[in-house]
């Protein structure tokens, strides 16, 4: 591997790390609020869980796109 390739890989790795910050915070907030909702209203737990998974799926996509771009770079 040449020096440029190694540098490119390192920069891509940093890019992936940056891409993971937002979704990490987002999923934390989302799951925390879902737990709170389920604790306050256990009878709505099923609905909250489905919606939580949906939200996680949408939020997670950003981190995963960063992960894919890391391989493409």
């Amino acid at each position, binding site marked *: 591997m040449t020096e440029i390739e190694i540098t490119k890989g390192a920069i891509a790795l940093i890019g992936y790390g940056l891409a993971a910050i937002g979704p990490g915070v987002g999923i934390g907030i989302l799951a925390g609020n879902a737990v709170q909702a389920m604790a306050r209203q256990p009878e709505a737990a099923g609905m909250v869980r*489905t919606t939580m*998974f*949906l939200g*996680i*799926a949408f939020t*997670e*996509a950003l981190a*995963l*796109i960063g992960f*894919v771009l890391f391989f493409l770079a």
Partner: protein
Amino acid sequence: MDLEILAFECETETDVVCTPPFVNELFETPDVFELFGVGVNRAMLLMFLAAFVVIALLWVALRKRSVVPTKFGAAIEGLVTLVKDEIATGIIGPQGAKYAPYLISIFLFILVGNLMEVTPFINFPITSRMALPAFLAILTWVIFVFAGFKEQGLGYLGHIIWPKDVPIALRWLVGIIEFVSIFLVRPFSLAVRLFANLVAGHVMLTLLLVTGYVYITGFSNATFNGVFGVMWWALALAIFLFEVVVSILQAYIFTLLSAVYIQTSVHPEH
């Protein structure tokens, strides 16, 4: 883990003992044999195996209709009921029963394909090749676009590119954003989500297991490094269990999002 990754290039003269192959080797699937001029590789064979497993599971479980089902039959029935009630009719509504067979098929197929990642001696999730998630996402795309045109006619496209509930000055901008997000971003993110999750798990498991293997076999000081190797394998075992959860969750999420997309085109927002 392909077996090829275990083919280390070892240099005994220098301090560097072994260089494992580059990680890109995980993404290459050489042809196993050729059939009528078309190369057949491992991923294709496993794809057929997954389809066969799904058919066999359903056939064995639901072949005999009895009042009291067997334990296995009850388990599969529970799975099918989950998709049919929770996802199909639960999200799409009464019209969802029409889409239940499609949702059940992709759920079981993705589930079996994902679980191949943690199946011993296969250790290769077929959904970690972009072709398969992309194809499934395009299938969902075709179904929700057709459902939209069938339920709402040309108004389906009209609602998207000229939304009536937005101030008129902003309609063109919202329309463009909506158009791109519905017709381009949706299938892309659907495919990438499944693909990237499985690739991440696959690479992670490979790295942990290969590291353990290198520690145990690759060095001369076997006892001390062996302890480290076993620790790596213990970590790999924990990740194995995590990957089982990820596999099931990703199959569920793919099906759930397909249902949500179909729902948005069946029921327009009033």
